[in-house]
C-alpha cells in the first residue's frame, strides 16, 4: 500500500469543455436588456415635469421627505405583520398537530378562513369595522366589570392594515411551520420522549429548532412578499410608501417617475432582506451540513471566475459544497 501512495500519478490537467453557447446567450440577453432599458430611460428623459426631464423628477423625489416617511411606515407594517404572522403561525401549527380535537379544529378553521379570503377584503373589513360595531368592549359576565372603547380609537387605519396583513399571514405561516415540523424525523420526538420530555419541551427544544431549516427559506419569501403586499394598506389610507408616491403623483402628474421611485425603494429593501435571509439560513444550517454554504458574495466571485452557474443554495440540505475542495 505504501508503494501505491508513493507512486501517485500526477494530477489530471485536462482542457476544460468550452461553452461558446453561454457567451452567445450572454450577449443576446445583454442586448435585449439594453434595448428595453434604453427605450424606457429615453421615454422618461423626454417626459416633461416641473423639474425638467423625468429623471430629474425621479432624482428629486427619491430622497423626498414624504417618500422616506412612507418607507418607515412600510417597514413598520412589514415587521409588525410578520411578527404577528410568525407568532400566531407557530401557535396555529402546534395547535393543528395537537391530539386535542377541539384545538386542532380551531386551527384548521382559522387557516381555512383567513387563507380563503383576499387580504384586501380583510384589510377593508378591519378598516370598516366601526360601521357595524361602534364600540368594542370586554368584561366579566354577571359583574359590573366592563371595559370598552370606541372602535375608531382602537382600530386606527394603521391598526386595520396591520391586523389585516398579520392575521392573513398567520394562516400561511401556520402551513409553513407545520411543513417544517413534519419534516423532522419522528425518531427525534421519540428519543426526546424517552428522556422524559413532555410535548411542549419536545416541540420547543428538539422539533422546532430543527424545523427552522425548512421554515426559514419560505419565511424569507413571505417577508419579501409582505414588504410589497403592505402596499395594500393603501386601501386603509395608511401613508406607507405606495400611498405616498400615489399622493405625490396625483399632485404633480409625474406618475411613472414616482412609480420608479417606489420601485427603486422596494428593490433596495427586498435586496437587503434577501441577503439577510441568506445569512439566517447559514446560521440555522448548523449541524446539518458538512460545511457552511458560501455567502452570496463568495458565490458571485466564484461565478465571475468560472462563469459557471452558481451551485444550488441551501434548500436541498446536505450537498457537498465546492468550497470544500482543496
Amino acid at each position, binding site marked *: 500500500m505504501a508503494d501505491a501512495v508513493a507512486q501517485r500519478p500526477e494530477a489530471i490537467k485536462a482542457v476544460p469543455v468550452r461553452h461558446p453557447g453561454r457567451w452567445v446567450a450572454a450577449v443576446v440577453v445583454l442586448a435585449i436588456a439594453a434595448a428595453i432599458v434604453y427605450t424606457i430611460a429615453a421615454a422618461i428623459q423626454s417626459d416633461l415635469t416641473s423639474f425638467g426631464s423625468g429623471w430629474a423628477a425621479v432624482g428629486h423625489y427619491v430622497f423626498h421627505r414624504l417618500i422616506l416617511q412612507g418607507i418607515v411606515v412600510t417597514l413598520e407594517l412589514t415587521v409588525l405583520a410578520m411578527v404577528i404572522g410568525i407568532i400566531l403561525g407557530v401557535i396555529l401549527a402546534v395547535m393543528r398537530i395537537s391530539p386535542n380535537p377541539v384545538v386542532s379544529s380551531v386551527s384548521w378553521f382559522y387557516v381555512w378562513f383567513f387563507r380563503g379570503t383576499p387580504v384586501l377584503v380583510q384589510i377593508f373589513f378591519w378598516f370598516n369595522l366601526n360601521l357595524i360595531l361602534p364600540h368594542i368592549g370586554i368584561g366579566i359576565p354577571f359583574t359590573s366589570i366592563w371595559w370598552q372603547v370606541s372602535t375608531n380609537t382602537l382600530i386606527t387605519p394603521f391598526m386595520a392594515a396591520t391586523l389585516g396583513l398579520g392575521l392573513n399571514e398567520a394562516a400561511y405561516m401556520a402551513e409553513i411551520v407545520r411543513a417544517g415540523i413534519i419534516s423532522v424525523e419522528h425518531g427525534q420526538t421519540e428519543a426526546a*420522549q424517552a*428522556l*422524559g420530555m*413532555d*410535548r411542549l419541551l419536545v416541540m420547543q427544544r*428538539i422539533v422546532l*429548532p430543527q424545523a427552522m431549516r425548512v421554515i426559514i427559506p419560505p419565511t424569507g419569501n413571505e417577508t419579501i412578499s409582505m414588504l410589497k403586499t403592505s402596499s395594500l394598506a393603501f386601501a386603509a389610507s395608511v401613508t406607507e410608501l405606495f400611498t405616498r408616491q400615489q399622493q405625490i403623483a396625483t399632485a404633480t402628474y409625474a406618475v411613472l417617475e414616482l412609480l420608479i421611485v417606489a420601485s427603486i425603494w422596494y428593490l433596495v429593501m427586498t435586496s437587503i432582506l434577501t441577503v439577510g435571509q441568506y445569512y439566517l439560513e447559514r446560521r440555522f444550517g448548523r*449541524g446539518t451540513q458538512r460545511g457552511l454554504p458560501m455567502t452570496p458574495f463568495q458565490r458571485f466571485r466564484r461565478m465571475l471566475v468560472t462563469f459557471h452557474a452558481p451551485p444550488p443554495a441551501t434548500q436541498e440540505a446536505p450537498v457537498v459544497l465546492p468550497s470544500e475542495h482543496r
Partner: protein
Amino acid sequence: MAGTPMVKAEAVHKNFGRLEVLRGIDLEVAPREVMCMIGPSGSGKSTFLRCINHLEKIDAGRLSVDGELVGYRQQGDKLYELRDAEVCRKRSEIGMVFQRFNLFPHMTALENVIEAPLRVKRESRAVAVDQGRRLLERVGLAEKVNAYPNQLSGGQQQRVAIARALAMQPKLMLFDEPTSALDPELVGEVLDVMRGLAEDGMTMVVVTHEMGFAREVGDSLVFMDGGVVVEEGKPKAVLTNPQHERTRTFLSSVL
C-alpha cells in the same frame, strides 16, 4: 426488595389495527439482570421494548416496571390512564437507546447529554455539565465533547446516545438493536460500553442480533417469534441446545 422484578409482563398483547404484534408475552427481568431478546424481524421484540417505556400502549395484559404499572394506575379493579406528566416522569427513569441513534443533530455531544438533566430534572448547569463530561469520558469520547453528531462516526454517535440515556440515572436501560445500523468494525466499541454497564450492575433489556454479546454478557436470553416468547433460558443453553424447532431454524440461519 429482591421480590420486585424490574420488568414484569403478564399476557401482554398489542395490535396495530388488525395486526397482532404481541400475543401474550410473559416475562420477568430481575434487578441487575441483563436480558437479551432475539428473533426474526417482525417478531415483536422491538415493539415489546417500546411498550416498556410507554412509547406504545399495550392493549391487554399487565406490564409493570419496578412494581408500578406502565401507563396506568390501578385503583380497586379499575384502571386509570396516567396523565402526560406522570408518563414523562416514569419515562425519565428508563433509558432507551435506538437503532438509528436519534441524537439531536443541532446540539453538540455534550449538549445532547445535558439536555434532559437540565430541562427535565432541572439540575443546575454546572452539575449537569460536570456529569455530562464524566459520562462522555466513560464512553470514551472525552475529546468529542463539542462535536456535532454529523462529525462523529456511527459508533461514536451510539456511545453519545448511551451517555445521553445514562445522564438521567435510569434504573433500567432498553437497547433497541443498538449495533444494527453500524459498520461491522464499529460494533465492538458500542458492545464494550454495554458490557461495562452490565458489569456495573445496570438492569438491561437488549434487543440484538449479536449472539456473542448475548452469550457472554446476557443473564437470560429470550427468543421471540410471531408475537410470543418461544423459548427462554440461560443464553448458553438456548444457543447451544435450543428446545424448539423454530429456535433451531432461526439460530442455524444467523449463526
